[in-house]
């Protein structure tokens, strides 16, 4: 069971779980009409390295910085999906997408691999009942970035909690491994 720290801190931190984060797919103007398409993700987890987030925050707080070298433009995040929806491959059904299914049977290897975090693409999170999220899965393949200022603002009202240091290191390492995997024919 993953440990969550619910205490709020102003700066963004690696492992922050934030609610209802928007991802802008596109913004176009045609014949005097502006059209913006966005996806709202119920839950995301911050994956950007914590040291980068801390340096960004300190630099922005500094009233007389010598430069803005440590400021970051966007933050890497990944969505959390309800594990029950992941099993059926229906977690993106509202977007018209059917995903691969995973067995619900704990004796099957794909279910076992998911729950034990042996599937490189996914990271399973089992939450305590005190946390208002169902058991979830991070899909590393669906990572995206959001504007740092936007995320910092939305965190004020949409913060759920922060994954404890030890567990977030595991997530961070697995995400890095997933990104740097080598595809062999």
């Amino acid at each position: 069971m993953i440990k969550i720290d619910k205490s709020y801190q102003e700066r963004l931190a690696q492992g922050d779980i934030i609610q209802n984060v928007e991802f802008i797919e596109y913004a176009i103007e045609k014949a005097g009409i502006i059209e913006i398409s966005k996806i709202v993700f119920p839950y995301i987890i911050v994956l950007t390295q914590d040291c980068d987030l801390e340096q960004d925050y300190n630099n922005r707080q500094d009233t007389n910085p010598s430069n803005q070298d440590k400021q970051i433009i966007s933050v890497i995040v990944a969505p959390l999906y309800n594990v029950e929806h992941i099993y059926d491959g229906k977690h993106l059904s509202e977007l018209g997408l059917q995903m691969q299914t995973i067995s619900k049977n704990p004796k099957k290897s794909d279910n076992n691999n998911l729950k034990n975090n042996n599937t490189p693409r996914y990271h399973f999170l089992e939450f305590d009942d005190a946390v208002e999220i169902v058991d979830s899965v991070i899909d590393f393949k669906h990572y995206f970035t959001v504007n740092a200022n936007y995320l910092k603002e939305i965190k004020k009202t949409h913060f759920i909690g922060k994954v404890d240091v030890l567990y977030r290191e595991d997530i961070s390492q697995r995400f890095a491994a997933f990104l740097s995997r080598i595809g062999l024919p």
Partner: protein
Amino acid sequence: MVNDENYFPEDYITEEKTSPSEATEEKYKKELDEQENKEAMKKYGISKPVRIIIKARIIDDKD
């Protein structure tokens, strides 16, 4: 540039959701307000990403 935020008529901005049905949408909105109910989330599966499309007509100062 028009600064009066009450200037824009009601039909200036439309928000069009591409979710499958209005029933699902209503259910999503209702459950979104009750997100602290973990059982409701499991039952209705509101924890799914949705796409929202916003359209807005540009108003020229000369209009």
